[in-house]
């Protein structure tokens, strides 16, 4: 960690950094639903103050044809205690594809069945395809390419019920649920519904339940009742490795 000579960083009080330690500098932009006037600029300044900025400076304002847009710079005295932060993380080693195949052979001695889909009315397949399809994503092959994984990607707009039926029918070891549209909390509803269905069906204990999407965090996934959640930058190997480890941990065979 970079510490500036003579100025010690206090990890219990971490503040934004503009150009010197603890200056608390930050940038803000927003619109107010009022036309641009000197009073609106003052309102923007006060808004920034309400957000705990001292000496906020409204550096830009634009009338949007009835509403007004502002860019503000300011400084805050508020701080975060880093020593109290704990973030649940997907832990464990990430196996390469050949390693993963080998581990599956060694630990389970059989093909693992992984089913996946983007559920609800969400039509975004690219994310789940990136994880599951042969081609993969950014040079990382998908689960279909794994010798020891029987990967079945149902695509998008799949009703949760249909995904569950399919998983039961094919005795899935893991279920992958993708959600990309998050507007108005859409994804939470869909993801919760999926968990409820899986739990009601009685197969929850025998199956690894994973969700993913650009706005999915592991923490949220745990809260919703999933075993893990994967966000941006996930590749098939992360998912495969997690399934292998989690199955072992749970004593699934």
């Amino acid at each position, binding site marked *: 960690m970079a510490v500036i000579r003579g100025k010690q960083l206090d990890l219990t009080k971490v503040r934004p950094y503009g150009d010197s330690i603890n200056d608390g500098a930050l940038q803000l932009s927003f*619109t107010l639903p009022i036309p641009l006037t000197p009073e609106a600029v003052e309102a923007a300044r006060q808004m920034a103050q309400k957000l705990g900025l001292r000496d906020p400076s409204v550096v830009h304002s634009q009338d*949007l044809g009835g509403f007004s847009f502002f860019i503000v710079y300011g400084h805050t005295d508020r701080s975060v205690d880093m020593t109290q932060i704990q973030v649940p993380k997907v832990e464990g080693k990430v196996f390469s594809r050949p390693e993963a195949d080998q581990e599956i052979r060694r630990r389970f001695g059989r093909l693992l069945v992984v089913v996946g889909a983007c559920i609800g009315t969400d039509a975004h397949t690219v994310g789940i395809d990136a994880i599951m399809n042969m081609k993969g994503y950014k040079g990382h092959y998908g689960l279909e390419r794994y010798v020891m994984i029987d990967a079945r990607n149902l695509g998008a707009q799949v009703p949760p019920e249909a995904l569950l039926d399919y998983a039961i029918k094919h005795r899935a070891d893991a279920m992958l649920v993708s959600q990309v549209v998050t507007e108005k909390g859409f994804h939470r509803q869909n993801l919760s519904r999926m968990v409820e269905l899986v739990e009601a069906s009685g197969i929850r204990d025998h199956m690894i339940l994973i969700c993913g999407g650009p706005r999915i965090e592991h923490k949220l996934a745990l809260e919703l009742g999933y075993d893990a959640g994967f966000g941006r930058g996930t590749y098939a190997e992360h998912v495969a490795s997690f399934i292998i480890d989690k199955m072992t941990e749970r004593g699934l065979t």
Partner: protein
Amino acid sequence: MHLGLDPGKIRHAREIARAITEPILIKILAHTTDSVERATLRLMGLDGADEDDIPYPNILVRHLRDRLGEGLAPLVAQAAKDRGLSLRELAYGVSEEKIDLRDFQPADRDAAGAECERLLRENIRRVERQVAARDGFVRELGQGEPPWLYVIVATGNIYEDVVQAQMAARQGADIIAVIRSTAQSLLDYVPEGITTTGFGGTYATQANFRVMREALDEVSREVGRYIRLVNYASGLCMPEIAAMGALERLDMMLNDSMYGILFRDINPLRTFIDQHLSRMISAYARIIINTGEDNYLTTADAVEAAHTVLASDLINERFAHEAGLPADLMGLGHAFEVYPEMTDSYLYELAQALLIREVFPDHPIKFMPPTKHMTGDIFRGYALNAMFNFTGVLTGQSIQLLGMLTEAMHTPFLMDRALAINNARLMFNAARHLAENLEIKPHSWLLQRSAEVLDRAITMLERIAEIGLFQAIADGMFADIKRPPEGGKGGDGVVLKSADYANPLLKILTEKVHGRH
């Protein structure tokens, strides 16, 4: 900035596209669909919905489902006339199960046809008035200089949309698109009335169209520039929405011959049939269509699949032509979607933008901004959008969909849209006449690349001509997505026309459109 592509090759490509669409066209003409019949009823003047919010056109089509092959319009027209009812009253009766038309036969089929035609002509005149009104606005107020600034509103609440749309116009937008609610394309009906909730967009309804059109007319006068309105004649209700758009003076419609198949898993034949009528209507209403090739590059790689965009544009062009659309209403799509962090990514973008412009010189082509590779880094996004806008004016694009710096996060905030407009205005103005100053070096990579993409498009089209378009789609030749001919939603709405199928709308439109150009 001219690539100087071989005109012979371009001509050849067009010929293959024609060979590809011809067999499809035969199928199109032989069938009707739920939506085609509903669209015809709408153009006869039927709208509204029953107590359960089921639109009357749907009620009649469902009621007469077994007789679709005859063509419902004359039948319904005559039934209403016989009873002295308006179409709406008739439909109300059917919905209340007080009227049963399933065995109804008009006394005189010709008279039924004539009555149907009478009703249609009334609305057709309304469409004509809208065309004239648009022309009047443009004549009187003028319009933006291309590339036109195209922005979307998508709040879910039409009144909130109106506020944002008017502000966008004041900021300099030329075109406002009201994004539809998530999954409306899969509704096999068009919702009714004014709507104030929706996810990721606002329902396309005729009432919403009207509210927005009025608001844009108002702001057009205020800013002294005609502001165009866009919606989606796409999904399971293509021709119906086209009809609504024609009646309410929409100026553009997202409308693609294959998008529904590929991205919405709609039955292929259904889609082909529906797009045909939707385009005939659009041609008559002088609505510019916007095709959806940009979408291919969200599922396939923009470098690898560049030629599929061109091939598809040529197919879309031919389908549009068959429906009577002139080139100046064909907003063929392409996009700026190469992975920006790739070395020389910009060269790929430039080659493609020039290529599409050169192959479609008379078309108001639609240029889509970076979306797939946008991230939460709004500053990077803003810089990419600047390059995109720069390219738009440099290569003379017609319809510039403005990229949003928050593309990776949410449908646009007011400030996102305002910043997008600022960006485009800045770039368009700063590089307004740059193109006149530059040439492409002979034998340069840009030339090679564009020629290669053209060649690959031709090879692809040749292959499609060989196996047929249905098979090509089944093989995943577009967008890396495979759709079998028998699959997809709405296939049950496709019906073979009987020998005595009657639909005066088709006759009128054919007459009108071909009379005109």
